[in-house]
């Protein structure tokens, strides 16, 4: 990279061409106030907080100003200081920015700037217009009174998440954040990925589910991964008193780069399902609460007979899966009964460089939101989307071509006319596998594995083969179906469902947010799940239960 000479506050320095002045100043540790700028978003120079003086009296936004040979910059002159304070006053005067009744007070970048620039009163009268508050969305609250029109949310929604829901309507003082063609957010094409909330610098976009639970700054931050599906996104969980306050996407995680879907960001906060919190044994036809020791002893007795087939869900960490295999040996199997001889030959990032993308039989917006994000971003970079599905598909409106399942080979044929085709699929029906096998090596396959740690389970040597035995021992956080005609059913589970009534022994286990261990995502990336919450009283971790059954 070529170097250019620039002068910062009188000091000559060599910097790389292609950088912006703001980037250079940040690297040099020079403090520049910013509002619309976000390191992960393209800069637009909307707010003018980051202005610097390039010639006496000439102010330019440093976030969009590229460095160039001979450029002179003043970052702390009286003109700059005055301009920044004036801009701040303008922003505060434009809508309602009274902190004392704002949920985001003490968690707000506008407030931070007020403090750091020493703003102790308003120099301009406030614009007393009441703006609407949009409460229609299930998870996101839009308070236009708090909006500073920085457009971070708009850029995040379009350029990072790829959903293109948010925009700005009108101009000047009438500018308004808008969803689709000016419909309430709850009725818009929003897929609830929540990235807009993550980047909002004020209280304009907030999470409903975390309201009044506490602010991020007074919470403890745990970096972990989401174990809701096989994508394995990096998440940042803010917790206070064993409660989740907010979940943000981890910008540094290479799998998702900050983007999340509804499941990862909001499901853990709105999970209202009833938990099983005490071990139970069926006595006289009814499940009766018992002590852990009694339940463990009873399970040991049954296992000792050697007549028990074990099934574990591949949603659990490798350590748990492997302990289960230690306990049951060849009698251990996977609940997710799938076999896939083709598997995966691509990374999610390959989607972004693909010129043709085929999505077979899966609605990405509904089930693999982050993969949907990758696909939508690729489409806006001119990739062609081909959807093969017999059902309605949320991504159909973005597709260049739509095929029925019976025409799968035609769709694949079309994809192969591209230079970098990527094929995304989840089902493993023989018809799909056969078609894909024939083109092996000619396209990258991304298989959306059916469980968060499916590849981890394979590594441990667990298979979905059906094992027939007298008794059955199932380890899964959630069970909605039990096989019939079994002598004794041992159930190690987290959530109460009506079907657990027909089990003989219940061992209450922790959910993924209370677990820790290793996961392998659909790309084959090994990641660490860190424990976020302490399980409720009476509940034990899967590893603890399996260890006591192994007598260790």
């Amino acid at each position, binding site marked *: 990279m070529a170097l250019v000479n620039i002068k910062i506050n009188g000091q000559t320095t060599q910097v790389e061409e292609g950088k912006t002045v703001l980037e250079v100043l940040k690297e040099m540790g020079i403090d520049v106030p910013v509002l619309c700028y976000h390191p992960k978003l393209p800069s637009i120079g909307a707010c003018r907080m980051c202005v610097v003086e390039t010639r006496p009296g000439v102010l330019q936004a440093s976030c969009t100003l590229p460095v160039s040979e001979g450029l002179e910059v003043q970052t702390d002159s009286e003109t700059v200081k005055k301009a920044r304070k004036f801009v701040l006053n303008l922003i505060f005067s434009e809508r309602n920015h*009274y*902190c*004392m009744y704002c949920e985001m007070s003490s968690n707000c970048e506008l*407030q931070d700037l*007020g403090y750091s620039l*020493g703003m102790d*009163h*308003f120099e301009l*009268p406030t614009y007393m217009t*009441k703006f609407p508050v949009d409460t229609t969305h299930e998870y996101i609250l839009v308070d236009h009174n708090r909006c500073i029109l920085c457009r971070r949310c708009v850029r995040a929604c379009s350029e990072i998440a790829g959903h293109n829901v948010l925009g700005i309507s009108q101009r000047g003082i009438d500018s308004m954040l808008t969803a689709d063609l000016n419909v309430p957010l709850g009725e818009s094409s929003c897929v609830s990925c929540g990235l807009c909330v993550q980047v909002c610098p004020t209280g304009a976009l907030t999470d409903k589910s975390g309201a009044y639970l506490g602010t991020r700054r007074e919470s403890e931050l745990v970096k972990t991964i989401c174990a809701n599906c096989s994508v394995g996104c990096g998440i940042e969980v803010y917790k206070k008193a064993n409660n989740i306050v907010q979940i943000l996407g981890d910008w540094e995680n290479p799998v998702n780069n900050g983007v999340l879907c509804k499941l990862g960001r909001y499901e853990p906060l709105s999970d209202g399902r009833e938990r099983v919190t005490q071990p139970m044994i069926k006595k006289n036809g009814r499940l009766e609460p018992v002590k852990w020791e009694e339940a463990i002893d009873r399970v040991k007795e049954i296992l000792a007979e050697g007549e028990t087939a074990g099934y574990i869900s591949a949603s659990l960490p490798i350590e748990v899966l492997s302990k289960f295999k230690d306990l049951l040996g060849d009698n251990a199997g996977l609940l997710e009964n799938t076999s896939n001889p083709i598997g995966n030959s691509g990374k999610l990032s390959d989607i972004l460089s693909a010129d043709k993308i085929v999505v077979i039989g899966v609605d990405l917006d509904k089930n693999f939101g982050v993969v949907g994000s990758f696909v939508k971003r690729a489409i806006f970079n001119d990739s062609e989307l081909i959807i093969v599905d017999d059902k309605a598909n949320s991504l159909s409106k973005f597709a260049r071509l739509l095929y029925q399942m019976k025409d799968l080979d035609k769709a694949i044929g079309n994809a192969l006319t591209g230079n970098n085709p990527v094929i995304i699929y989840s089902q493993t029906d023989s018809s799909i596998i056969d078609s894909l096998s024939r083109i092996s090596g000619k396209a990258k396959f991304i298989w959306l594995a059916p469980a968060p740690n499916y590849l981890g389970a394979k590594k441990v040597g667990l298979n979905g083969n059906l094992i027939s035995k007298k008794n059955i021992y199932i380890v899964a956080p959630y069970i909605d179906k039990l096989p019939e005609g079994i002598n004794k059913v041992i159930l190690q589970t987290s959530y109460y469902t009506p079907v657990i009534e027909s089990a003989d022994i219940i061992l209450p286990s922790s959910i993924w947010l209370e677990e820790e261990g290793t996961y392998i995502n659909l790309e084959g990336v090994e990641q660490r799940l860190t424990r976020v919450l302490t399980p409720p009283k009476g509940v034990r971790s899967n590893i603890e239960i399996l260890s006591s059954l192994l007598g260790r």
Partner: protein
Amino acid sequence: MKKITIATDWLDGCSGCHMSILDMDERLVELIKMGVELNATPITDFKEPTEEVDIGILEGAVSTDHHIEVVKNMRNKCKILVAIGDCAVFGGIVTMRNYFPVEELLRRGYIETESTVDGKIPTSPEIGKHTKLVKAVNQIVKVDFYIPGCPPRADAIYYVLRELVEGRKPLLVGDLLRYD
């Protein structure tokens, strides 16, 4: 020892800022030992400054014609005017009523409240008449120093008074400058 006289008053506020003044606790005594004398406050016998004072302190937003009088009177009677709390400084929570016409505000408050039976809007001349818009004190008269906060920390009030008593210009930074 030179006497430094202070008068305080409240406008459309919740008295929380005056609670913060009291929260200075033993530091109030310290200030008094330094020569501070409270001339008039809402909680002393004299409600209005009886003479010209050195420092005038106002809490609350300007919401009625009476408040305008109080503000102007305080400005005339004091050398240094300090606005304390978000309402006096910015307009604060009281400005929420700027979103509604005064008639609607009074109707909702005195007649339509859920627990009210046969409510009536008071008309006594002793009660101030609402202005169309709630304003911050500096929209009516010149203010010399501001202590925002809802309420401002006792530490911030003490710091400002101490600086003024000792003849310096206070500048709120760090934890002393808060809007909530």
